[in-house]
């Protein structure tokens, strides 16, 4: 789960981690009154969207006066921002963060993340702050310091110190730097984060360390034990169909094509997209209906797929293991009737009771085209849709 920068900074504040003075604004009126109340004349007006690259796309403006700040707020709020991470359709900016400017002396990079190859939490620090860390990792890897956390003892104080020195924090600040690093790590663990990224971590001219930007992502699997975090979810940042699907325990991702898919199992669902493309078709969605495909779930799945008006045909690919194909077939027939499905429907059933499943489809009175193999199914749906 992702949250906005201003929400991340609120959380940092609760842990005593310094952030700039700032307030969110969800409307122009709010922005204006916030800007008026700010003590500083130098203000940062920042678009709040769940994507990076905002600065380059004009989503972050530094204003030298309150008038400038108001103009910036009017320009950014309600606009559609297209950044490297939003995709070509961009994201609409519904929220702003208004912050007091600060006197930057130097910028650093700090993040905490899971290192998949060691299955351990790793802290990454660099003197190259404010830049794209992946580029630095590729072009100047020597500028990056890493500390791997031993799960049995957590991050050790000496590791936080070592990282502070390695990042190039001035020696006089190593102690407060280490304390800052330790607080960031503790936050990561306490909130079950998947990422905490402070880029840039700024050293001000007043010799203070503050988190000028903060990105926090949370482990979806752990949200059950953080009910307070769930409240921070911004549903306008999510695809409506993906949200709806997750409420029914269906895994759904919208894509750009016109062949709807329903499959049991994530790997098989990915493979189904692959085979459709291989036969010249374009999948409209990824959908994993899971291991307990009841009539209700299959009906929900059809409904969600068909909400996408681009869909011209549907491919159902089920490998019945414990789930019997005849049960699935009955579910498909009921769901097709309930939803009034008129689109071409190709159903490939394999596994337990596949033959009786196929019989049920054939006798349903519906126009359902059976397929015996992955290739056959994909070929047929592609030919129907073209």
């Amino acid at each position, binding site marked *: 789960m992702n949250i906005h920068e201003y929400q991340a900074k609120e959380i940092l504040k609760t842990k005593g981690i310094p952030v700039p003075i700032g307030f969110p604004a969800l409307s122009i009126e709010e922005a204006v009154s916030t800007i008026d109340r700010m003590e500083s004349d130098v203000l940062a007006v920042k678009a709040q969207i769940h994507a990076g690259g905002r600065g380059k796309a004009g989503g972050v403006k530094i204003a030298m006066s309150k008038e400038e700040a108001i103009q910036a707020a009017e320009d950014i709020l309600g606009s559609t921002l297209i950044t490297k991470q939003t995709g070509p359709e961009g994201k609409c900016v519904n929220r702003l963060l208004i912050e007091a400017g600060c006197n930057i002396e130097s910028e650093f990079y700090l993040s905490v993340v899971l290192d998949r190859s060691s299955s*351990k939490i790793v802290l990454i620090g660099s003197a190259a702050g404010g830049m794209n860390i992946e580029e630095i990792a590729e072009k100047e890897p020597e500028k990056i310091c890493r500390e791997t956390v031993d799960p049995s003892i957590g991050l050790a104080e000496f590791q936080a110190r070592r990282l502070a020195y390695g990042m190039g924090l001035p020696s006089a600040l190593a102690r407060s730097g280490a304390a800052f690093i330790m607080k960031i790590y503790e936050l990561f663990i306490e909130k079950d984060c*998947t990422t905490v990224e402070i880029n840039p971590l700024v050293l001000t001219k007043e010799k203070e360390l503050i988190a000028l930007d903060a990105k926090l992502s949370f*482990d979806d699997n752990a949200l059950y034990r953080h009910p307070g975090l769930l409240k921070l979810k911004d549903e306008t940042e999510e695809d409506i169909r993906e949200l709806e699907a997750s409420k029914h325990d269906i*895994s759904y991702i919208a894509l750009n094509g016109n062949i709807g898919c329903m499959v049991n199992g*994530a790997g098989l669902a990915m493979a189904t997209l692959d085979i459709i493309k*291989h036969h010249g078709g374009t999948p409209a969605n990824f959908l994993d209906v899971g291991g307990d495909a009841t009539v209700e779930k299959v009906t929900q799945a059809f409904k969600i797929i068909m909400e996408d008006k681009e869909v011209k045909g549907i491919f159902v690919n089920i490998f019945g293991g414990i789930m019997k194909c005849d049960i699935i077939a009955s579910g498909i027939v009921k769901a097709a009737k309930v939803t009034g499905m008129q689109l071409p429907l190709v159903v490939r059933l394999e596994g337990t009771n596949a033959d009786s499943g196929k019989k049920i489809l054939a006798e349903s009175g519906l126009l359902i085209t059976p397929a015996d193999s992955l290739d056959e199914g994909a070929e047929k749906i592609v030919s129907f849709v073209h």
Partner: protein
Amino acid sequence: MSIMINRTTKVIVQGITGSAAQFHTREMLSYGTNIVAGVTPGKSGMEINGIPVYNTVQEAKWETDANASVIYVPAPFAADAIMEAAEAGIELIVCITEHIPVLDMVKAKAYVEKCGVRLIGPNCPGIITPDECKIGIMPGHIHKKGHIGVVSRSGTLTYEAVHQLSEKGYGQSTAVGIGGDPVSGTNFIDVLTAFEQDSETHGVLMIGEIGGTLEEEAAHWIKQNMSKPVACFIAGKSAPAGKRMGHAGAIISGGKGTAADKIKTLRSCGITIAETPGEMGEAMIHALNALHPKN
């Protein structure tokens, strides 16, 4: 022969009193798996399908000398169940559970390694040696006894691959589901090492997907260490970047973990690639014949 499990393996079912666990216990028993005990805290003295239930894994092990365990415990408690089995010295732990918090697994995996036992999963269908032992939820009847080792991050896609092999007359020595999570107990190299040492395994079919670098690491290992032919299918060629495709570990992030990169590395290390999921069985046969060309 086979790897890791066979007809003598003695299995404990952790979480046995849950409804899914009871169902799968019956399925495993009817396949012929030697289930010797169940564990559910507080339910000691019960019997499920004739299987005695104990409060703790330690007690179950003392009473039955079990050497494997399968975990059907809900996600909030599953990591603890893994660690309980590891501490009791269960040599092979198979965790079916999906949605275990990542930080729980980071701890559990480190603990398992400290205890010197093997964890398969979590979020996996399990492991099966056809006609001998099934530990997990896979449909036994699609499997045939034979000489192809199967190792996969997936569930139903693995069944698809096994089905293709069985239909073409190529049975399996052992099929291992290593699971779809970003933190897993066993990786491809662990399983390939065992297949390489198993005289009855003549070739290996690997099924990977986007996310992480397990396939690339396996590719380099295969090039250096594997004498037997390997075929591979990678799911997710059409997956968009940045989106979690069902499995928690199936995500392309920071440009890393794409199907294209994995396929490139695998090919360069001599592994036969199945271009589409419909050709997984064929790719395996092709790889076998390439090593031992038929006259």
